[in-house]
């Protein structure tokens, strides 16, 4: 390429340009496919960004105040005050509250027993009962945490004032003060949106490539191209080029939507993101190619692509943290390109990580890309021959 403009372009370049042109024309001609590739990801990002909110708040709660004292009313009002729990009704007993859980009208019941206020004033141990609907562990954990934290703090306050009244030294107290990095509001979208990028790219590129090639094979047009003097590497590179651009366009769209709509901070150097996207696309396109060489029709290509993408998304740490997976699963995540891309995307956008921090992931992505693409080309060649 540096040889100067005077020399005619090499044969490989002419062939490559021709294949790219043919692919671009073919992709542009099918408007519905274009829509699927360009705008569907945008719609998905919007829906995902708004829908995936693991913040638990406004848990419907039934209160059973059996004490009906000033004290019990005060505490019940305060425990509901921070918005984690929402008052969804009253009950006269624990049993009646539990029945509301059965009917799905509430997810938590707080029972304040009779003589609660009197016990507290007299210095006798007082107890509050909480009954939870445990079907959603995340929600029940948060609800239990909110109630325990409120009454725990109240308990410490009581113990201190009692010690003071009795002239004793205050009881020991430990405070763990948190300092939150990167996402102090603990918002879901800034974390989820970079993860969506990893998911969308694999959905858009892998399955579409696999099915596109199978379709050409079904229709017999692949054979026509195979008899031309274009070598397989040039053919495949040309076929993949439009998808690289579509992938970049989708990432760009996602980044813009992420920053404007969902407040993703974009703290890092965008060059890191561009390099990561390119290396990642090499892997996802390589997998699509590989699947198409192993399938005899579009249906099998689709199911094969599906069989790869679903577990790959699950074992990537996009939705759930890798640390809490069982050991054998953590081992599987090591050979998953999605894992490395989501790590780079999140570290880059949220934490401002540069090349110095993310080079191990980038090297891993490059390795996967080279191996997968190489393997796919080799199989494609063998099959075409």
């Amino acid at each position, binding site marked *: 390429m540096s040889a100067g403009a005077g020399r005619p372009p090499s044969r490989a370049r002419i062939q490559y340009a021709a294949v790219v042109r043919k692919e671009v024309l073919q992709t542009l001609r099918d408007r519905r496919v274009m829509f699927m590739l360009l705008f569907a990801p945008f719609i998905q990002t919007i829906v995902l960004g708004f829908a995936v909110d693991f*913040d638990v708040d406004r848990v419907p709660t039934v209160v059973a105040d059996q004490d009906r004292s000033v004290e019990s009313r005060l505490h019940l009002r305060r425990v509901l005050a921070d918005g984690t729990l929402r008052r969804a009704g009253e009950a006269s007993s624990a049993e009646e509250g539990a029945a509301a859980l059965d009917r799905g009208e509430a997810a938590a019941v707080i029972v304040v027993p009779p003589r609660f206020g009197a016990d507290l004033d007299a210095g006798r141990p007082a107890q509050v009962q909480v009954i939870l609907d445990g079907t959603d562990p995340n929600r029940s*954990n948060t609800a239990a945490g909110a109630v325990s934290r409120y009454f725990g703090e109240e308990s410490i306050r009581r113990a201190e004032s009692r010690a003071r009244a009795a002239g004793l030294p205050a009881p020991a107290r430990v405070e763990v003060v948190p300092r939150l990095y990167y996402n102090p509001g603990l918002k879901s979208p800034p974390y989820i949106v970079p993860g969506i990028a990893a998911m969308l790219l694999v959905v858009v590129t892998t399955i*579409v490539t696999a099915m596109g090639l199978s379709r050409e094979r079904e229709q017999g047009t692949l054979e026509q191209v195979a008899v031309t003097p274009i070598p397989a590497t040039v053919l495949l590179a040309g076929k993949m080029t439009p998808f690289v651009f579509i992938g970049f366009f989708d990432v760009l769209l996602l980044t813009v939507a992420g920053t404007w709509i969902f407040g993703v901070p974009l703290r890092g150097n965008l060059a890191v993101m561009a390099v990561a996207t390119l290396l990642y696309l090499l892997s996802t396109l390589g997998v699509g190619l590989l699947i198409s060489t192993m399938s005899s029709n579009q249906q099998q290509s689709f199911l094969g692509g599906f069989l790869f993408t679903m577990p790959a998304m*699950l074992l990537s740490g996009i939705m759930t943290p890798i640390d809490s997976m069982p050991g054998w699963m953590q081992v599987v995540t090591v050979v998953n390109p999605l894992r490395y891309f989501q790590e780079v995307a999140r570290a880059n956008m949220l934490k401002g990580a540069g090349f110095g921090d993310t080079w191990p992931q980038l090297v891993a992505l490059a390795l996967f890309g080279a191996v997968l693409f190489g393997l796919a080309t080799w199989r494609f060649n063998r099959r075409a021959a």
Partner: protein
Amino acid sequence: MSLARTRPGRFVARVLAISWKEILHIQRDPRTLALALVMPVVMLLLFGYGVSFDVDHVPLAVSDQDRTEASRRLALAFTEIGEFSPVGGGDADRADTLFRRHATRAILVIPDGYGKDLARGGPARAELLLDAADPVTANQVLTKADAIALAEGRRAAGAAGLHASPPLQVKVSTRYNPEARSAVYIVPGLAAYLMAITAVLLTALTVAGEWERGSMEQLFASPVSRLEIVLGKLLPYLGIGLVQLLLILGVGTNVFDVPILGSPLLVILAGLLFLAGMLGQGLFISVVARNQLVATQAGALSSLLPSLLLSGMLVPIDNMPVPLQVLSRVIPARYLVDALRQILLKGNGFASVRGDLLAMLIFAVAIVALATRRFRRRIA
């Protein structure tokens, strides 16, 4: 024979003939059938083991600047419960770099003088630096850190012979899923998800394939009505879907101990109504798309994501913005997830899932009617 001459008899015979043709198609492509039946089991195992919102083994680095008995005790309180796994010493000044490189998720900094403060009875402070990029993990870590601090304070006070029993206690009891296992929550949702995907995509693909190859026109040339073709095509896939449901429930109960407290018949009824709707949706997509590539993308967009995200399977619907909550009402997976959780986990009966069943029935009838109508319009 006499039955076959009556009108309903002939109707049934023709529907069965179309079904038989479809079964032959499915048989000829055993790889697709195997994928349709193996995939749900694989996915179920992966989801069941892999999706755990219960955070544990969070990597934690400790920077103990106090180096006293008390500070070591606090560090131990964090690491001994299994929710944190120690990753060696951390340096608070390098927190940013450590977080960026995924070297640790949290750093516990115990400042000099912690032990002295605790012995004096004054509030003893430690600092927890937390990589809060992942809000779910961060939230749970915060809750756990609070509980540990409370317990440590109580332990220290108890050791000093003061206030053995706290003045106020909270007793928590949990119904339905007392061990708070994510799998129990996930499996009913996953049943809806996996059935939706295979039902919509398999029908969309096979029918779109027939359009592409032109064999659909041959079918129209035969003396069968549209409704007979539609029902005949859907019947075998209803069977596959039902086998899937039983597989999912079998693996769910045996591997993940998901209880079946309610009536199994009610589960199957709910499953059938849901499947009918999903198959109708697949058919509708294939009639509109007529090309396998578009059909799969449209199928994925209309079934995969909504039944994963808007069904309440992973993310509670109550948390969503109102427009999405409204949208979730036209997604049948929402009703199946709710019905399955009620029947399986709570043991509720017909009366409490009546509304869910009705909603799925309405969707199924509406979408099959719509697909049948579009059928003729396309061919004319």
